């Protein structure tokens, strides 16, 4: 574009500082409008090619009587559907996304400094924080998913008992061989903490509605509420502590080793971690949840 031709004579009233800024400016017509036009044309062509080559899917007519296995939400919600497998549905389906969106919206109110404004990753430790945050988020989430899918158990059994077990799929285990130690059964997955430990009845069925919150004494309907401490720990306390604790831990470690020193550093670290978690959850939910939402490779739209 003819940049120099556009330089404008500036009136004397304009102050020196503004004058410098003016000389750095271009006219929107033609420079920006031209780029926008080209971008729109290129994008239109790409989309047209895509639309000619790949048809949008249309499966059989909707039938409420036939539930496909697996049933999946649209891809951008599969991260939440993946969370659903690991924690209480209210947490995964509503509380986590709500808190995440509020936290996202609150970013500018936490990080109010002007450093690094208006330029790509221009603060000193921006890139290291981006990379570390992304890797930790990605790998950490993957490890948690593997843990909850008992992959470590399968890995152990596969190594300790070659031939009787498969690693990648839920192969039938030979019942006679010595698998994962019985005493460590509660470490098989998150749920095993509830199912494999001997929780006393007093803790697994606390009759809150019947004995503690006696609303019936006030003439109100009784609340049929029974608390299972083991369930609460597995479905709520551990997931919440993990989701809050690990990011905080990451920030503290990054701060101690001098990686994250300013607010912007911490923001980049946390945001990159968040994006990485979002991406890996979406990928796993889309491509690695098959029948019964087991952790197996899955081809999308392969089922009727």
């Amino acid at each position: 574009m003819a940049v120099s031709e556009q330089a404008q004579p500036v009136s004397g009233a304009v102050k020196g500082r503004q004058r410098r800024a003016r000389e750095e400016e271009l006219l929107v017509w033609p420079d920006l409008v031209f780029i926008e036009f080209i971008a729109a044309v290129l994008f239109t062509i790409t989309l047209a090619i895509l639309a000619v080559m790949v048809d949008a899917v249309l499966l059989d007519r909707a039938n409420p009587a036939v539930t496909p296995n697996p049933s999946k939400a649209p891809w951008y919600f599969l991260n939440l559907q993946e969370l659903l497998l690991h924690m209480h549905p209210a947490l995964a389906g509503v509380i986590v996304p709500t808190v995440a969106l509020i936290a996202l919206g609150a970013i500018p109110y936490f990080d109010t400094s002007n450093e690094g404004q208006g330029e790509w990753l221009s603060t000193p430790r921006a890139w290291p924080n981006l990379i570390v945050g992304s890797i930790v988020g990605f790998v950490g989430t993957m490890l948690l998913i593997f843990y909850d899918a008992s992959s470590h158990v399968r890995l152990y059994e596969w190594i300790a008992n070659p031939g009787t077990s498969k690693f990648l799929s839920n192969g039938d285990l030979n019942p006679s061989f010595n698998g994962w130690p019985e005493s460590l059964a509660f470490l098989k997955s998150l749920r095993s903490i509830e199912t494999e430990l001997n929780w006393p009845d007093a803790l697994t069925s606390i009759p809150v509605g019947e004995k503690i919150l006696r609303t019936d004494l006030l003439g109100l309907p009784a609340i049929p509420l029974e608390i299972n401490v083991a369930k609460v720990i597995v479905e709520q306390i551990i997931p919440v502590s993990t989701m809050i604790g690990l990011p905080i831990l990451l920030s503290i470690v990054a701060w101690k080793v001098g990686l994250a020193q300013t607010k912007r550093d911490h923001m980049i670290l946390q945001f990159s971690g968040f994006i990485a978690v979002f991406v890996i959850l979406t990928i796993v939910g889309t491509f690695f949840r098959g029948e019964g939402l087991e952790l197996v490779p899955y081809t999308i739209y392969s089922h009727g």
Partner: protein
Amino acid sequence: MATGEQPPGQTLGDRLYDFAFKNRVWKSIFRSGYPNTPRNQMLAVATNVFLHLHPTRIHRTHVKITHTFCLGGLSFFLFLGLTITGVLLMFYYVPSIERAYGDILRLETDVRFGQLLRNLHRWMAHGMVLTVLMHMMRVFYTGAYKPPREFNWVVGVVLLVLTLLLSFTGYLLPWDQLALWAITVGTNMVGSAPILGEPNRFVLVGGFQVGQAALIRFYTLHVIALPLIAAIFMAVHFWRIRRDGGLARPL
């Protein structure tokens, strides 16, 4: 022609130029002259209702593609494209559980370019979710949410939610197995919220399961309510970019 307006009647080119751009009709539509002088170029932007979303001048770093990768602009472009293809799709589609699926089948087989139309709408919808997410990332990594742009970031988060809801409500409309069960899974998530979850799910779906009531609700949200709200928020978004002094720049 960089020197400005030509004296009339010189060469054939000049005569054609005058004929095209200096007649009453042209001048009644575009009040400024043809944008071949800096003055007219600024007027072209400032006096045109569509172009005046822009400032007349812009800092040179913001014209570099790698600063924005055009992602916000492309999101808006996709929104416009979705509106156009969406209106065309509405010609062929009736939101009733008896007809919807058949309408889509007929659109694909009987309507000229019908399949292409549907494909375009579908890919643009997926594309918009992607471009909006990537736009958010570019705004974050260029530190463009910092004061005074805090509120525009919040408006952006609202736009992100609206984009997802637009896509989600559209997902049900073909009324195939994919649509029904994706929306069933999705709305069940809403239902799992403490206390108000189930009532909310009931209102959204219009019943205990996804059926005719859900279809008409999602359709109405998809074709009128959500696009209107999104358009309003986009107007605020663009207005705020101007008010906040254009795109963010290092201090």
